[in-house]
Each structure stands twice: as C-alpha cells, then as structure tokens.
C-alpha cells in the first residue's frame, strides 16, 4: 500500500509543483481558481482517456506514438509558458504596482490564465495517465485490491496537493514587487526543462538521432531519481546526465523566452509617468 502511495506521489509531484508556481504567478488575477481547477479536472479526465487508448496511441507512427505524444504535449506547454511570460511582460507592471488596474487587464488576463490552465492540464495528463495504468494494473492483479488503489490514489494526490500548497505559501513570502519577477523566471526554467525532456522522448523514439552524447555526470552528487533531484528536475530542469540535445533545447528556450518577453514589453510603458491605455488593446 505504501509502495503504491509513493509511486502515485512521485507521479503527481510534477503537477503539484506546477500548480503551486502557477498559483503564485497569477496572484491577484481574477478568475484564476476557476482556470486552475479546469486545468486539473481536464487533465484528470484526459488521463483516463489516454490510459484507455494507451496501446492505440503507442502503436501510432510506427510505434513512436507514445514518444510523439509526450514530446508534443510538452512542447505545447512550452509554447503556453512562453506566451504567458510575454503577457506578463506587457501587463505585469499593472499587477505589481496597482492592484486596481488588474480589473482592466482581466479580459486579456483570461487568455493568459487559459494558457496556464493548459500547462497544468498537460502536466496532470502526462503523469496522470501513468497513474491510471498503474492503479488499474493493481486492480487486475490478485495480490492487490481496491483498498490499495484507493489509499494509494487518494493519498498520493493529497500529498501532491500538499506540495502545491507548501510551494505556493513559500513563494508568497516573496514581496509582491519581486514575486512576478521570480515566478517569471521559474516558469521560464520550467519551460526550458520541459523542452529538454521533450528532446529525450524524440531521441528515444529514434526521431532525434543527433546530440545523444552525455555531456557530464553529476549523479554522484544528486541523482535524478532522488526526491530532491526529481523536484529540481521539474522546477529548473536539473538532470544528472544531460545530453548535448537536452542542453541545446534548454538554452534555446531560455534565450527564446527572454527575447520574446523583452520584445513584448517593448513599447509597453514609458519609464516615467502613468501608463496610457492605448485603443489598440
């Protein structure tokens, strides 16, 4: 029973951490609770669907369906995170300086929230489908049982939720004027780590043949599959044996998002004086 709880927890840890960051990143934006809930519920529903069709998905594209699916949803999440950060670069100043201004940004804020809901949904979907397959496997075997599935499933999810709450509470200790800068960086590194993971799936599928050489090995200090290693892997993309392709994807996404946010904030506000709302918005 404990073993199943630990496995479920490790799978939901990723979603738990991402929910925590997203909640902090959207502090003060109206309607965020609805979008976050939508992302989680959508992800869980999607998990069941993906698990039900797992064999079918796996058989697609000359048996590389599973890898392409994983890489695909990860890259969607990367795009959504990039878009959110660009939006924050345009509107973040309003959020940080003047909470009353948030009302003005709500309509466009909804689009940004939708993007983050997709990111949460994708995180839940990817790991959730594995949880569903694992738990249905226990249900099907003789030694397992309904109690194990319920305890493991609910207990694991409760621990995942606890992680969200703790990370959120921790991030809220940061003063508001620094909070959005911090969460923007966290979301950028999250995106970069996701892109690096996506290259792994493409390499495993035999689609990406180059850059498979491992550049360095820090598994002696911190292993990927330790709890801290796994948490850092999700948060900042830590990996103990990065390949050349992973590093390239990581750096490309960090650079890409930095350029994108700089470009999005260009012409946003004059450095002095109150911001004029242009009719184009």
């Amino acid at each position: 029973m404990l073993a199943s709880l630990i496995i479920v927890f490790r799978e939901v840890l990723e979603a738990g951490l991402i929910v925590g960051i997203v909640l902090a990143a959207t502090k003060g934006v109206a309607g965020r609770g609805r979008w976050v809930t939508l992302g989680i519920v959508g992800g869980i529903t999607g998990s069941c669907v993906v698990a039900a069709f797992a064999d079918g998905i796996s058989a697609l594209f000359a048996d590389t369906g599973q890898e392409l699916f994983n890489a695909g949803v990860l890259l969607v999440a990367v795009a959504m995170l990039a878009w959110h950060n660009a939006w924050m670069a345009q509107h973040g100043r309003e959020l940080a300086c003047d909470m009353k201004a948030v009302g003005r940004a709500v309509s466009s804020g909804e689009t940004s929230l939708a993007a983050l809901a997709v990111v949460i949904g994708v995180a839940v979907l990817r790991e959730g489908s594995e949880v569903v397959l694992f738990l249905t496997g226990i249900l099907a075997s003789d030694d397992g049982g309904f109690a194990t599935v319920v305890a493991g499933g609910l207990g694991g999810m409760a621990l995942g939720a606890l992680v969200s709450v703790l990370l959120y509470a921790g991030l809220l200790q940061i003063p508001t004027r620094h909070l959005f800068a911090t969460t923007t960086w966290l979301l950028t590194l999250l995106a970069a780590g996701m892109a690096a993971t996506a290259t792994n799936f493409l390499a495993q599928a035999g689609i990406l043949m180059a850059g498979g050489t491992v550049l360095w090995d820090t598994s002696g200090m911190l292993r990927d599959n330790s709890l801290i290693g796994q948490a850092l892997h999700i948060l900042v993309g830590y990996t103990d044996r990065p390949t050349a392709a992973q590093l390239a994807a990581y750096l490309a996404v960090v650079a890409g998002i930095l350029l994108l946010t700089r470009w999005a904030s260009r012409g946003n506000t004059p450095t002095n004086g109150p911001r004029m709302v242009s009719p184009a918005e």
Partner: protein
Amino acid sequence: MRRIQPLAAACALALFGATLATAAPARADDAPVTIVIKDHKFQPAEVKIPANKRVTLLVDNQDATSEEFESGEMKVEKIVGGRKQIKVMVGPLKPGRYPFFGEFHEATAQGAVIAE
C-alpha cells in the same frame, strides 16, 4: 492587435523547436536487443550491447498488466501495455553498466544493460 503577437511568436518558438527535432536523419537499422518481462521480472536481467552506438531495445511484456520500462542512466521511459511490445532507442553509451527497472513493479523488475 498587439495582443496577438506574443501568441504568434510563442507558436513560432515551438515550431522552431519542432523543426529542429524532425530535421534529424532516420533510425538505425541494426536488429533490436530483446528483453522479456514475465512475472514482473526481466529476462535476461542483464543484456550486452555494443558501446558508442545507437541501439534499439525491444521490450516484450508477456504479463497481463502494464509496466513502465524506465532508466535514468539510459534516459528512457516508456509504458509497455499488458502483452505488448515496445521499442526504445538508447545511446550512444560509453562502456559501463546501465540499470533499468519496471516502475510499476520495482521490487522485482530490475535489470541492466552492459555496454562494451
């Protein structure tokens, strides 16, 4: 109008990444190395593969339940359905021992690839 632009740029960024990935050449042609899963154990528990080249592993799950074939050392992670087979590409690996395991039955499902 200006609000659309970041979204378009974000999509362009994702497309750029996808293009990079798919621009690579096709797969290796060597015969795959087979690992069977039976009663939540790997048979053989140790397989030898050539070092410093891309190798395809074929995982044949003869159990009725799903398994997740996983190895941090080889950077693979793939679900194998009950009574299904999957292929994963690994490497190029430096000579050495690379453990793998079945995440859904970690107590018994342990094995390793020896690259030499």
